[in-house]
């Protein structure tokens, strides 16, 4: 049987997200409870979490989480890691033995900084790190980088999400922002790397849906150096946001208006200035329109954004209680951990829900592009 | 009133209008094969295609506002309906004197001498209560049935 990356696997899912705008840390218990309510939305073939603020002691290091099929590939990969990074600390990620979790790969994490002398050819540090990850993931058979941000981490595997949470001992971590994912793939490869969240640097994504524009998106992304090795929607969506926000430096709203573009009929009713902008976004980045049903939570150091496809073909509920923000596929998943929210609502298709830490203006720091210093980002080939 | 207008730029000279006119006025109404094969003397076409290649167009009674034929008719058979504007000939009263032929400036009245001599002319298929057969069967919309204002797309 072909595994993730060798074949495209569509999947249905559950997603959930919690964050505190003041940056107060909470354990992973709430998010596990929330995602567990939606047990029936997953089928035990994938679950995972993203947690922000969990590695304060290594907050300036890239926290690289890797799966290895065996020790040999671990050795091979570590050789490369050491070549391109200085490793501050390397350790297996702590886990519990859970009967439901089987076929566990080797799971390691590295707190690392890039080696400056190797970075000369790259425009930025992030380019360098991303390129390294792409190479490991596409070229080193049996090794897979599944988390690569700073002061954050993703934890995922084959199993129901509540079991995965327990397996990774998430109750022992403290973070200010959590997202979770329970997977219902319509194929059964059972590969750990294929579980969600999908992440690149500190950007993570949990996703429910199946995008019908996948190959159009993928083939466009591949022109910009992305290698969609997993062939999953989530991977593609992550890269789309990465391309738009990080590489093209577009504001988040513009990225949203590309992936969940307003209909032409709506654009035609806008004022001429807006029309010009929205038309340009749709015309130039038409291949990045994400078509088909999706609900996603895009997480970053600064917060998260939840978004539905423009027709809202997938359920998504948001709620707020004081400084806490909640997002989930189902309202029950929110009520489970927040009995009486101040307000709750169903965001409209294509209209993002953006939750930021107080004091932050945008989900990503790199989208603050000064016009005078506007640098033409080269196309990575 | 609605009249049949010919748009000569689109007339292909096929004369289907004549053929369908004949059939529409045959006792085998609209059955072409029977009209032409069973009628001993098929009716005379009330529409005439004039042709001098490459120009051709079909012409029939214009149903004039102030129709000279109705004034010249010596027996009062030629009549313009004040409601519909359609000029028809009461064939039972017509004596075939051809005074209408003499005065019709369009040459749109023909002599039907198959039996009792009568003047034969377009009746806009008023019996059918539909659009005239010539217009209905014109393959190229070279005949339009319309008010003058709207005809030919011109105001």
């Amino acid at each position, binding site marked *: 049987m072909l595994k993730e990356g060798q074949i*495209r696997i*569509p999947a249905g899912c559950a997603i959930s997200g919690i964050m505190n705008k003041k940056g107060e840390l909470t354990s992973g218990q709430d998010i596990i409870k929330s995602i567990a309510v939606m047990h029936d939305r997953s089928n035990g073939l994938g679950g995972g979490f993203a947690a922000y603020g969990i590695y304060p002691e290594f907050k300036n290091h890239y926290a690289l989480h890797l799966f290895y099929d065996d020790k040999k590939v671990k050795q091979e990969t570590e050789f490369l890691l050491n070549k391109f990074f200085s490793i501050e600390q390397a350790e297996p990620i702590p886990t519990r033995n859970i009967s439901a979790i089987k076929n566990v790969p080797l799971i390691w994490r590295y707190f690392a900084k890039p080696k400056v002398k190797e970075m000369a050819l790259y425009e930025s540090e992030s380019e360098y790190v991303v390129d390294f990850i792409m190479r490991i993931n596409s070229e080193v058979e049996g090794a897979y980088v599944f988390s690569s941000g700073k002061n954050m981490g993703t934890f995922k595997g084959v199993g129901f999400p509540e079991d995965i949470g327990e397996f990774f001992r998430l109750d022992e971590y403290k973070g200010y922002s959590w997202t979770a994912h329970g997977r219902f793939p*319509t194929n059964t490869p059972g590969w750990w790397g294929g579980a969600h969240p999908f992440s690149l640097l500190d950007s993570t994504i949990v996703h429910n*849906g*199946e*995008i*019908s*524009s*996948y*190959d*159009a998106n993928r*083939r*466009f992304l591949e*022109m*910009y150096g992305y290698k969609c090795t997993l062939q999953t929607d989530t991977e593609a969506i992550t890269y789309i946001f990465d391309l738009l926000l990080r590489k*093209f*430096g*577009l*504001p988040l*709203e*513009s990225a949203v208006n590309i992936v969940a*573009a307003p209909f*032409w*009929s709506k654009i035609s009713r806008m004022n001429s*200035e807006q029309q*010009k*902008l929205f*038309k*340009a*976004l*749709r*015309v*130039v980045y*038409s*291949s990045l329109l994400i*078509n*088909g*049903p999706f609900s996603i939570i895009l997480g970053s150091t600064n917060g998260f954004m939840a978004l539905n496809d423009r*027709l809202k073909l997938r359920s998504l509920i948001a709620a707020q209680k004081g400084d806490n923000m909640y997002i989930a596929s189902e309202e029950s998943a929110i009520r489970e951990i927040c009995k009486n929210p101040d307000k709750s609502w169903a965001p409209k298709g294509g209209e993002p829900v953006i939750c930021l830490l107080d004091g932050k203006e945008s989900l990503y720091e790199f989208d603050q592009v000064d*016009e005078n210093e*506007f640098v*033409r980002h080269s196309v990575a*080939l | 009133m609605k009249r049949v207008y010919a748009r000569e730029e*689109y007339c*292909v*000279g*096929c*004369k*289907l209008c004549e*053929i*369908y006119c004949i059939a529409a006025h045959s006792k085998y109404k609209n059955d*072409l*094969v029977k*009209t032409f094969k069973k009628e001993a003397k098929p009716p005379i076409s009330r529409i005439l295609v004039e042709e001098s*290649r*490459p120009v051709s167009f079909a012409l029939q009674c214009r149903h004039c506002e102030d129709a000279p034929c109705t004034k010249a008719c010596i027996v009062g058979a030629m009549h313009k309906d004040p409601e519909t504007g359609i000029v028809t000939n009461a064939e039972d009263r017509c004596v075939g004197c051809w005074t209408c032929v003499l005065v019709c400036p369009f040459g749109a009245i023909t002599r039907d001498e198959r039996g009792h001599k009568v003047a034969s002319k377009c009746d806009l298929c008023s019996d059918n209560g539909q659009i005239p057969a010539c217009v209905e069967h014109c*393959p*190229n*919309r*070279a005949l339009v049935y319309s008010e003058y204002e709207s005809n030919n797309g011109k105001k």
Partner: protein
Amino acid sequence: MSINYLTPAFLIERDKDRCIDCQVCVRQCANEAHRWDEEEQRVFSEDANCVNCHRCVVMCPTRALHIKKFPLEFRNNANWTQDAMRAIYLQAETGGVLLTGMGNDRPYPIYWDHMLLNASQVTNPSIDPLREPMELKTYLGRKPDFLKIKKGKLLEDIPPQLELDVPIMFSAMSFGSISLNAHKSLAAAAKKVGTYWNTGEGGLHKDLVEHGSHTIVQVASGRFGVDADYLKTAAAIEIKIGQGAKPGIGGHLPGEKVGEEVSQTRMIPLGTDAISPAPHHDIYSIEDLRQLIYSLKEATEYQKPVIVKIAAVHNVAAIASGIVRAGADVVAIDGFRGGTGAAPLRTRDSVGIPIEFALAAVDTRLREEGIRNQVSLVVGGSIRNSSDIVKAIALGADAVYIATSALISMGCHMCQKCYTGKCNWGIATQDPQLTKRLNPEIGAERAANLLKAWAHEIEEMLGGMGINALESLRGNRLMLRGIGLTDRELNILGIKAAGE
């Protein structure tokens, strides 16, 4: 005199029970295949003159006519077919190049028919275009790599784009090769549906200037009808390098077709032959093309997209890449089944490659070079129906060009005798007796209906795939599966086999 060895190709059968001797067939056949015998008072047939254009069959009010293949059998021979032999008889008689009209009719594989489309089931809802918005709008033109946006404002306009409400345009057919009424039909249909028609290389007739906003004007090797006004009137300019039906071959409109109107529109003397050279004599290399592209952009103040049209030939991918880098905003590729008013038969039937391969190769190549998004890709060369279009877009096209289908919608019955100038449907002729058979009102309606119908079908198929905007299909080759194709062919098309 000697005997003509050619036997009739078709047999006209007249049902005596139905024929009413109305002579409509006689009046309608420009080839004089029907004859009224005054003495016998009935209609006779001249089978040898029949080209099987069906005009008489369609016009016959009693459906009394049938055209059949002439029932003359040659001894079975898989090698020396009737066609092969007839060609020799004809050439032995005339000593000339075999001419033909319309596209390649040889039984090469049609790859559209070897590709199947996907549809959503369960995991992803299909979309009902009657209930949900379904967007076919397509913009053709150069796209910048990125946009500069500040405080919700676009800082720099994007280059000029052609806005298409349906991803289908009428491709180039010159006034001269087709009639003014055919041009009028196409222009009005394009306007009605929200797309574009293309003048071809014969200039823009003065009556059609009003449709300029929906007109693509062509600049071809003969430069017929090209002046500043011509360029400025148009929505876009197309440089024609080649044509699918006759790659590497120029064009020749005989003087007898150059009447008053054609002469004025082409800006050439009345009655003179209009010769389009095989190459542009100012384009002998890709650098020269770049110069012409930019000359045209200069002349139109960078307000009009410039399209470069080429025939699908063996190394089309590399050529297309060069064209993009030379500054073209749109690359149009015409496959080897593309139609023509007149082409040497052997060229038409054996030069060029199928558009399906050309498209796949070009799209892949431009993506490999990372320049696919800079340019729009338009393909033509026998797009026969809406599923061909859906497949073309999934393979990577932005839009398609149709010409033969448009002509068929207006009455063409594919008799392939365009080059004789006796088109009984009033399309490929300048004979005033024949051109009026195409009433542009009807022609426009029919051509527009075709586009509307196809648009509906495209919407249905898109909805079935769970897609509600055409751009999400573009290059989405996962939506395609091959059937009956070799690994090599699948590989070139960049698609999987059905079942994979």
